Structure formats: C-alpha cells, structure tokens
C-alpha cells in the first residue's frame, strides 16, 4: 500500500528555487542598472532639443558655404545674392528642424517601445504565472476529489461488508454483530438461550473481513 502523499514532495525543488533565485537577482540588477538609464533616456528625449542642434549645424553650413569665401564686389553688387542666401538658409533650417524633430520622436518611441516591451513581458509573465497557478489549482482539486472519492468508497465498502457480515451472522444463529450464538438442543431446535462468542468464534464467523 502506498504511503500518504507528503506536502514537501510537491514543493519547488532545490534546482527550481536556485533558478528562481538567480532570476530574481538578475531582475533586481536589471532594474537597478537599466531602469534608471531608461528613465533618464525618457527625460533626455523630452528635454533635449535635437532640432536646435541640427539648426545650428545647418546655419553654420549655409553661411560657410555661401559667405565663407568672404564678400566680393560682384556679389555685393548682385541684385539677388542676399535673397538667395536667405532662401537657402530658410530651406536648410526647415530641413534641419524636421530632421531634429524626427530624431527626437524616434528616440522617444524607442524609449517607449523598450518600456512597453518590458510591460509586455510583465503581462506575459503574469499570464504564465496564472497558468502555473491554474495547473496547481487543478491538481489540488483533483487530489481533493480523489481523497473524497476514496473516503466515500471506503465508507461504502465498510457499510457493505458490515451489512453482509451482519446478515450472514443472523443466518448463522448469531446476533447481527456476532457477539452471541443462539444455542440449539440435540434435535436442532432453538433453546431460547444465547452464549457469548469468544474472539476465536468471531474470527471463524468472519466471511467478509
């Protein structure tokens, strides 16, 4: 006969505990090291004016290209030199602003994607945890059900055996529980008196035990 299930047999193994322990330490290190970095990146992406930097570069490039050679008399006398300079500078500034803003947005969505990725991991983690919990619940319910069934079955068996043995006893001139034997005379008729059975008599009577 198998022994009663022990709760410790169903607890996490040493390997599982160690794995969980390492994972917890890694997670803690990640949170401590990379969590602040990502938050800092978030703040920088909001605060940093990449457009301003790009515009500065674009302005310098424009001026260096168009006025870097120094002024010339021909240029000064030209009707549209200044207008061309303004036109080129406006175009460059617009391109630089767009480039800066695009870079900033890219940085921001990158930060958010990483943060959301972590949250996504957390969600699938919770789903996995609930799956583990569910398996455990089912196992526990199944175990309880098995215990209940076994108890009922044992009760039924006991009652059936008791009933069968009791009626068998009655048929064998003893009381229902087999405690006494009805005595008969030599002709086989009941004398109306009983004798108390010994344990040896009881074992002899037992047919279902």
């Amino acid at each position, binding site marked *: 006969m198998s022994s009663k299930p022990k709760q410790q047999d169903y607890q*996490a193994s040493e390997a599982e505990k160690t794995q969980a322990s390492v994972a917890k*330490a890694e997670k803690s290190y990640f949170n401590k090291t990379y969590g602040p970095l990502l938050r800092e990146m978030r703040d920088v992406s909001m605060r940093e004016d990449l457009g301003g930097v790009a515009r500065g570069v674009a302005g310098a490039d424009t001026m260096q290209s168009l006025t870097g050679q120094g002024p010339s008399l021909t240029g*000064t006398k030209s009707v549209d030199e200044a207008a061309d300079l303004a036109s080129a500078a406006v175009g460059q*500034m*617009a391109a630089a602003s767009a480039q800066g*803003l695009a870079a900033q947005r890219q940085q921001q969505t990158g930060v958010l994607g990483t943060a959301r990725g972590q949250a996504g991991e957390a*969600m699938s983690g919770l789903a996995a945890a609930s799956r583990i919990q569910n398996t455990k619940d089912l196992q526990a319910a199944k175990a309880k059900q098995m215990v209940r069934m076994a108890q009922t079955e044992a009760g039924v068996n006991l009652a059936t055996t008791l009933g069968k043995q009791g009626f068998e006893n009655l048929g064998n001139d003893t009381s229902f529980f087999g405690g006494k034997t009805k005595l008969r005379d030599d002709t086989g008729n009941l004398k109306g008196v009983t004798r108390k059975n010994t344990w040896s008599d009881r074992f002899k009577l037992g047919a279902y035990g």
Partner: protein
Amino acid sequence: MGLADYSNALMPETRGFSTSTLPSVDDPEKAFADITRQDYENYIQDYRGFEESLIDKAKKDTSLIDRAPEDAAKQAEIAKGVQERNISRYGGAGLSIAQRQEQQRALQRQGQLGLAGGLNTARTAQRDINQTTLADLINIGQGVNRSSLAGMQTASQNAAAKASAYKNAKAAHTSQMVGLGSSLAATAILAFAI
C-alpha cells in the same frame, strides 16, 4: 578603456561573489507574480504619462509649422544684414538708388517666397513626422495588444479548463453516488434473500 579595466579589481561588488548571497526564493511562483506585477506598476508610474504625451504630440504637434515664419523672417534679416555690411565695406559698391531698391525688393520677395516655401515644406515634414510617430506608437500598441490578447487567451483557457474539471468532478460524484446507492440496494436485497 581596455577590457582589462573591467576586471574584478575595479568592481568590488563582484569580487569574492558567492551564490550564497543570492536572494532566497522559497516560492518561485509568488516571486514571479510579484516581479511581473511590480514591472507593470513601474510602467504605469514611469511611462504611462510619457506615452500619452507622445500620442498627443503625434496627433497635434505643429512645432515645425509654427517655426517656419519665424525662420523665414530671421534668415531674411540675417541676409539683409550681410548685404548691408558688404555694401558698407565696398563704400556703397557703386550701386545706384534704383539698384539698391531692386536688391531690397528681391530680398523682400525672396523672404515671402521663403516663407511660403518654408511653410509648405514644414507642413509636409510635420505631417510626415507625426504620421511616422503615430505609426510607431500604433506598432508598439499593437505589440501590447497582442500580449494582452495572449494573456486573455490563457486566462480564458484556464477558466474553461477549470469549468471542465468541475463538470468532470460533478459527473464522477454523481456516478459514485449511483454506485453507492446500487451497492446499498444490493446489500438490502441480499439481506432479504437470506
């Protein structure tokens, strides 16, 4: 800095490290649930506002368009300054009043053209950037949506499995009770037969 600089000598916390210093975890499942819950709380606390602000910007940002007139005016002003300084350097450069007026008109005209062109470029760029940002955000959101659906699927499968297990248990119980009844009936019949 070379790789050698990353040796244990510079990192006291890794020197003499032993796994015995690892945090003790008696219930991995609870630890897992705690960590994942904490991660989600961190996201809500640190990034939810950031995300909403970014969505808002992707929908409403007009910073490039707003800046275009300012840029056009400023660049026209700079060009005008350059022109005046050059003329001054060359002692008027022999320009007649008519030529000077024409230069000013060209600058003004170019300024207006620059403003119109700049605004058009800014509108296009703004729209492009906003759309790209929105697309990126939707992409991120879609990933989150997918994870959520996967989570929901797991939860609903779990609930269905539990419901099915309950149904099976009920059926088993009914069958057991019927067995018990028939067994008792058999005993009773046996008793009367005797």
